[in-house]
């Protein structure tokens, strides 16, 4: 069984080609918006020159000489990149092993080129058979983004199982939903967005069609601010999303923030949604991370979801302890142990052991 699992894991690592999300902790630690490292101003996906160098110089335990000049440029004006994430989940009910699941989470390839002030960014999500192209027009501190992509909302954490993102796809508490609607199954949708970077602030508003449900038009907006308070970096932001022209359309508001000082970082967010299922839903996330040494981080996280705040039985609280190891450039390994507390009469999900392998270039 173990041998088979290892073989299967190895197979996915090498032959399975995902959805792109940023790691906002790095933005917090740099006291800057995601655009510092990513081509897409909303974060995630293809890294810019700074992002690649930051990955080499700040995130890894060791940088082999042959990677030190990596740029992703292949034909003078074209940059190629990619993200592959594979996850395994092993469950235990008490002391009894209760199955192992290995699945690819993300397998995306991105390509970028610039024509004067216009940036063209293509993104192929092979697992979702989804192709998106964005045209980004830059003018000083302002930009216009049109094409096929995803709107910016909240922290856009790299883990879609967090309740403020997509939560549990396989329901465990007998709810209609166990997490906000940002699951990895969501595809790119037609989008038009304008943004402004002003000092340490970043403001963006836009419209998208058919993103969260077919034919729905969604308005979204996000404002974030980064700064330093003495030796401490901070970020604070708010996001809003509303389906318009539809009765009982989804409406969501999100508050997020973080503090970072030296080796310690805290990030958190809270999302309140109206008409996600029925009534008002709530999801929260809070994570504390300690950098033990370059390439090695330990973290503790609590996330919570309540499908309808009028009732208590549909709530879930999950506690996670994790280790993040970046042994080499372009390779990120995460280990997590987590336990869910269900407020319903459903039997506890037990302890889960998760491993995630992230390869990017």
């Amino acid at each position, binding site marked *: 069984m173990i041998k088979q699992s290892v073989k299967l894991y190895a197979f996915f690592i090498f032959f399975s080609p995902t959805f792109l999300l940023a790691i906002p902790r790095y933005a917090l630690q740099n006291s800057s918006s995601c*655009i510092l490292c990513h081509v897409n*101003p909303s974060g995630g996906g293809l890294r810019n020159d700074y992002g690649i160098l930051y990955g080499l110089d700040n995130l890894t335990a060791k940088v082999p000489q042959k990677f030190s000049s990596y*740029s*992703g440029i292949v034909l003078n004006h074209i940059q*190629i990149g*990619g993200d592959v994430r594979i996850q395994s989940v092993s469950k235990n009910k008490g002391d009894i092993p209760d199955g192992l699941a290995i699945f690819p989470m993300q397998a995306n390839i991105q390509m970028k080129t610039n024509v004067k002030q216009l940036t063209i960014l293509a993104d192929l999500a092979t697992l979702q058979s989804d192709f998106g192209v964005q045209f980004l027009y*830059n003018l*000083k501190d302002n930009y216009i983004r049109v094409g096929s992509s995803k709107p910016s909302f909240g922290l856009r954490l790299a883990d879609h199982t967090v309740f403020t993102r997509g939560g549990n796809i396989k329901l465990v508490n007998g709810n209609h939903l166990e997490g906000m609607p940002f699951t990895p199954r969501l595809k790119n949708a037609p989008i038009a967005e304008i943004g402004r970077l002003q000092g340490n602030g970043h403001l963006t508003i836009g419209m998208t069609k058919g993103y969260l449900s077919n034919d729905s038009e969604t308005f979204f907006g996000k404002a974030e601010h980064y700064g330093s308070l003495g030796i401490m970096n901070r970020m604070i932001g708010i996001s809003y999303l509303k389906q318009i022209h539809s009765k009982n359309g989804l409406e969501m508001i999100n508050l997020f923030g973080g503090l970072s000082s030296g080796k310690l970082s805290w990030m958190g967010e809270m999302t309140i949604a109206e008409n996600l299922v029925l009534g008002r839903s709530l999801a929260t996330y809070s994570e504390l991370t300690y950098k033990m040494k370059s390439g090695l981080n330990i973290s503790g996280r609590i996330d919570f979801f309540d499908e309808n705040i009028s009732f208590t039985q549909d709530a879930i609280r999950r506690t996670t302890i994790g280790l993040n190891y970046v042994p080499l450039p372009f390779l990120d390994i995460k280990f997590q142990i987590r336990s869910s507390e269900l407020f319903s009469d459903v039997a506890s999900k037990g302890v889960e052991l998760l491993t995630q392998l992230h390869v990017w270039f």
Partner: protein
Amino acid sequence: MKRIVLIISLISGFLFGQQSELKNLKVLPYKTKREVVKFMKSVVAPELGVKCSFCHNMTDYSSDEKDHKKVARQMIAMVQQSNKTMNDLNFHEISCWVCHRGNEHPEHPPKKK
């Protein structure tokens, strides 16, 4: 098919990935982006207490759209020129810190005559 596309992209990215050319670099003596970023992160940003966006268009770092970048270039040229004199006099080199002390603008400008 998807996997083939991914594998080809992965391999081509690593094998044929080129050293990207430095664009619009006029006064700094560096040959690679890594050297430029290291200089900016370790010298310019902390000594002026600013983030990259103070001088750069974040969607195109090489652009000269922002006036702060043009001023910064002149300032760097001034420091380089000063350091030639300092070297001739056998003095220590100077950097932005000598005047800026972690501020966007030096706190105590010389008195007007």
